[in-house]
């Protein structure tokens, strides 16, 4: 049974479900749920696309998030990401199935892939959307600009429309446990389609990335040196969270730049952001103030971080932070 092409006025949404090592990422479920929600609201249909090798079982899980059908393109050559080959596959499947709306995660992979798709499909692309709504039968996207210092509402006017959705913002909702029907498809690929290909992946610390984590524990200049960041790491590990850093801490060489949160670092939206010894320069606030709950620990009561914090302790980070780790350990019953 094929997925019907979209009749006129019948929107078909393609949701790109990202996998790595045969496992779907959390953002895949978020994108799937968004496709379901907006297909329903637009009176259209949706399907997910999974690209990789031996991914059928993973693809079926998308059924738990409201997706009935998943198109799988399975090829050993596609086991590792290739910007050129993946773009070709997504564009061909989108065209074959009459998809006019594409959802991708605003992840490292989605952000790499989406612009190529925009060029291939002559489509407008709204990057890193944090909200979607339907107005007059059109999808309107809200996206942060200036690292979150402002928000814009945008409308895509081209026939094909692409949206990348910021991870952790769109909720995947409850897994119903349903299984999706998998339909395999193939796209003819030649050597030249792999002019860029991933040959290896190096995992940095094993901790979640600041952009993906539900909880981020961040340290700034107030940590007074790299030797004290183990206090940040301990709390982050206890909570299964990510370690973040202010630009000051990164520029001082205390922390790697991939942990930097802020305008020249990463913009994050976790459920809980704990800022330790961070005063809250405007560039930093831009990158983290969309976190759902913010805790600030800083000895300067006038620090700007307290203006965005839900809960603050005006005190010495070296007194408060270890106590917080201890208290949470007790709370989690890990003492």
């Amino acid at each position, binding site marked *: 049974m094929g997925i019907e092409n979209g009749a006129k006025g019948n929107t078909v949404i393609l949701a790109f479900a990202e996998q790595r090592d045969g496992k779907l990422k959390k953002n895949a479920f978020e994108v799937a749920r968004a496709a379901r929600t907006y297909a329903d609201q637009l009176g259209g249909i949706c399907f997910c696309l999974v690209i990789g090798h031996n991914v059928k079982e993973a693809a079926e899980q998308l059924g738990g998030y409201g997706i009935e059908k998943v198109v799988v393109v399975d090829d050993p050559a596609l086991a590792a990401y290739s910007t050129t080959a993946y773009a070709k596959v997504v564009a061909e499947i989108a065209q074959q199935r009459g998809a006019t709306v594409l959802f991708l995660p605003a992840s490292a992979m989605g952000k790499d892939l989406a612009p*190529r798709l925009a060029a291939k499909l002559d489509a407008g692309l709204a990057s890193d959307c944090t909200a979607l709504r339907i107005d007059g039968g059109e999808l309107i996207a809200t996206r942060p600009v*200036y690292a979150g*210092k402002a*928000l814009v509402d945008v409308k895509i006017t081209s026939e094909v429309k692409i949206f990348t959705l910021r991870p952790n913002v769109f909720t995947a909702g409850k897994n119903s446990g349903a299984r999706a029907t998998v339909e395999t498809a193939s796209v003819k690929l030649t050597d030249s389609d792999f002019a860029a290909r991933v040959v290896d*992946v190096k995992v940095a610390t094993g901790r979640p990335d600041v952009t993906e984590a539900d909880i981020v524990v961040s340290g700034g200049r107030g940590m007074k040196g790299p030797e004290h960041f183990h206090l940040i790491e301990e709390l982050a590990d206890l909570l299964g969270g990510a370690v973040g850093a202010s630009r000051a801490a990164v520029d001082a060489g205390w922390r790697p730049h991939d942990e930097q949160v802020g305008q020249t*670092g990463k913009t994050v939206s976790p459920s809980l952001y704990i800022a330790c010894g961070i005063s809250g320069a405007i560039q930093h606030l831009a990158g983290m103030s969309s976190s759902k709950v913010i805790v600030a620990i800083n000895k300067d009561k006038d620090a700007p971080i307290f203006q965005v914090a839900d809960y603050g302790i005006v005190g010495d980070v070296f007194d408060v932070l270890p106590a917080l780790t201890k208290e949470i350990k007790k709370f989690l019953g890990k003492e």
Partner: protein
Amino acid sequence: MNIVVCINHVPDTETKVKIGPDGKTIDRTGVNYILNPYDEFAIEESLRLKEKFGGQVTAISLGSDAHKETLRKAYAMGVDKAILIKDDSIRDSFGVARALADVIKELNPDIVFFGKQSIDYDDAQVNGIVAEMLGLPSASVVVKLEIENGVARVDREIEGGHEIVEVKLPAVFSAQKGLNEPRYPSLKGIMQAKNKPIEERTPSPVTPKVEVLSMRKPPAKGAGKIIGTDSSAVPELVRLLHEEAKVI
């Protein structure tokens, strides 16, 4: 090696954004503009490749005459040639990419460098669209680059680690912080940059595909509770995080 580096002129990161009278863009009054920070890494890497392999580096920027200031900074850092695609109209990323791709195509480069994104609209699109328009492979968010026998081996940043990507040249790359330490322009370089020619081009008009309907400030987050001044406040904090905020 023929290298093109695409650069942008953007509000300083210190900028306190105010919404402009049109309700769709920022109020530019008093805003200080700088070379897009990620583009500094792109320029630096381009110069290092030139120093290693020979060739020339051409900097391109699309925008108003104000972008000349940024092109002069690129000159001061050491690029060989600067092109301004003069355009005051509002363009989306697709439109910017179209204009850049048209000029880049004529230059027939081995490598095209971008910063990973402009810190104004944060679209992170132009590099990828240009790559596809030119039919070139690419790697974005690059933190390490090595070239051997016409193949680039790059590290690109992904969630929680790096992807090692092999890319056949010619190719398009976007630079992330960490790729290098950009040089400071020398005084001599700055002085000389003032008199260097900036070639001007006129782009073909394009219809935007993405339209900004409105711009607004994010909802202000009211300052929250100050719970205490030392570790004695910690049990109360944990209680609030659990019972009130429900995040742990």
